[in-house]
């Protein structure tokens, strides 16, 4: 398992390097001129950084969420956080909000995500604690509500902002610049750090609250902490570049095939796997049909799903 983890780290860095130098036109790092240096440092590098941060956030939060909800179908989007973020972003885009300059839409999305996370938390709270089923159902309910509101706004909006909002919501990494990266690093690494710190408690929570309690963990406190970390990571990810499917749901399962279910390894492996997959998918999205770009979210699902199904048949694993 340790060797597999080491391999994932290696693959992660290999993908990073490859996506930096390949693209619509490959760049030779040893022969840079003004244009290629500009492209490499100010266009590609921040884009890769954002892709990696988003992928890491989605992978790690997926793993944590499947643990705290004890549900293999949980993903960061099931809690409605992404729908809330999308709704807020769409309102921002269609309403032409510019109060925070180029940060307006990400700030809107982040606020929408955090607010939704808060509502889900309140709805899932009963008798002094968060309950997995309540969280899940509250998330699904809110998610339907927000998606419907989003569709409502889009169908009554006459503005051409609809298409823009759609493009934004379905994942756009092309506008990534260095300015957003520090915020991303703060929230994503913060979330991953909390999850890693509480990974042992997460292992115990999966086995049931009584069991966790007997091992000396306070189940409700742990769940709240982990829930906050998931909320932060998902909010950061959506506000960095919209919604990217597949990673949050399936990367943790793929990682489990190689690493096993110990969250001390699973969370970082899911983070690295998610980062690598989104980075690779974005590489394909921007290089497949130059000078056009495809949405990266489509590519993650197209390359990820068959691989997941293959593993599902090949590996002898029955559940989370």
């Amino acid at each position, binding site marked *: 398992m340790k060797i597999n983890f080491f391999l994932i780290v290696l693959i992660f860095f290999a993908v990073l390097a490859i996506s930096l130098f390949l*693209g*619509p036109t490959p760049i030779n790092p040893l022969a840079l001129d003004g244009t290629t240096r500009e492209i490499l440092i100010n266009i590609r590098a921040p884009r890769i950084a954002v892709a990696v941060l988003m992928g890491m956030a989605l992978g790690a939060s997926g793993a944590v969420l499947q643990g705290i909800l004890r549900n293999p179908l949980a993903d960061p989007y099931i809690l409605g956080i992404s729908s809330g973020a999308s709704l807020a972003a769409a309102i921002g885009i269609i309403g032409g909000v*510019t109060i925070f*300059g180029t940060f307006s839409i990400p700030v809107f999305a982040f606020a929408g995500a955090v607010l939704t996370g808060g509502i889900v938390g309140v709805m899932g709270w009963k008798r002094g604690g968060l309950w997995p089923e309540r969280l899940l159902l509250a998330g699904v309910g809110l998610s339907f509500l927000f998606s419907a509101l989003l569709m409502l706004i889009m169908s009554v909006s006459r503005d051409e902002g609809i298409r823009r909002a759609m493009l934004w919501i379905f994942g756009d990494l092309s*506008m990534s610049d260095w300015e957003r990266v520090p915020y991303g690093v703060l929230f994503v690494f913060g979330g991953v750090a909390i999850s890693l710190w509480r990974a042992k408690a997460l292992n115990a929570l999966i086995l049931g609250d009584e069991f966790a309690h007997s091992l000396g963990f306070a189940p409700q406190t742990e769940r709240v902490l982990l829930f906050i970390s998931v909320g932060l990571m998902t909010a950061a990810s959506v506000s960095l570049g919209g919604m990217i499917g597949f990673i949050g749901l399936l990367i943790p399962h793929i990682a489990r095939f190689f690493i096993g279910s110990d969250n001390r390894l699973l969370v970082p492996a899911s983070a690295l796997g998610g980062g690598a997959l989104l980075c690779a998918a974005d590489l394909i999205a921007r290089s497949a049909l130059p000078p*056009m770009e495809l949405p990266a979210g489509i590519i993650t699902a197209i390359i990820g799903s068959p691989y997941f199904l293959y593993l599902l048949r090949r590996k002898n694993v029955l559940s989370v």
Partner: protein
Amino acid sequence: MEYHRLSFPLVGNPSPDLAKKDAGQAGMTPGQHGTRSMNERLPSRKIFGLLFLLFTFYFSLFTVSYAAEPPKRIISLAPNMTEILFALGLGDRIVGVTSFCDYPEEAKKKPKVGGMSNPSLEAVVTLKPDIVVMTTDGNPKEFEARLRSMGIRTYVFTSRRLSELPRGVRELGAALGVKAKADEFADHFEASLGKFRIKHARAARNARKVLFIVWPEPLIVAGPGTVIDDALRIIGVENIASGAKAEYPKYSIEEVIRKSPDIIFIGKGKGMESASEGLFKMLRKVPAVREKMVFYVSDDLYRLGPRTLRGIEEISALTDGKP
């Protein structure tokens, strides 16, 4: 008009009134048909007239879309069609438009029948149109079929490119009974295009590279097959996005930097300047941005219609006399 031609061989001699009318439409003088001699044979005239009416009725069942009367109640299902109809002097006859039809000012006051891709069938039917004018550029085909199946006459405008517009307007004008006005419009359009071509013929030889941005974030530009692409070609500049594979592709920022356009046009609009701030920061090394050759232009080029010429004039003036 169609059924007149169809029924003549069957009925033999048509009634003089109709013959006169038909001849008039064909641009002939009534006398050519020998009106007087037929007036003397009243009974046969009546029979022929009756037969003719029967045939007219029979054929009109199958050729609903060719009613002889110019339509009085028109619904337009596309903003550019609304503009063209107004330009042809048919504004008074328009009884319904889409919620996107905002030009000219009077269009805003017309009853709305929904969006371009999702017009309301009920709203259209309620307005009892004589004809519904649609385009292949945004209206669903199924909607047109549905209208026809309900016996509502439709006219589908198929021109999508600059060079196709004059012919399209001529045909439309003929179908709506404003042929002269449509020909005038088309002649003027063709002549203006010709003038632009001549004016910019020299520029085309060492064409400057241009990018026309439709939306900055994510970057959507005008690609091949669009009116904007045609307009850029006419004013003798090279659209760097004309090699893309979609009409309005999401374009790679890397490729913009690599292709280094000399001029960038970007659509004006609410909040556009602040929305494009981030993009132009990323493109700061591109000649157009460095040399301040970024121009915010009106939306005249977005619709293929009477305003298109003004749009070409605008970008033509901006590229004029500059190195």
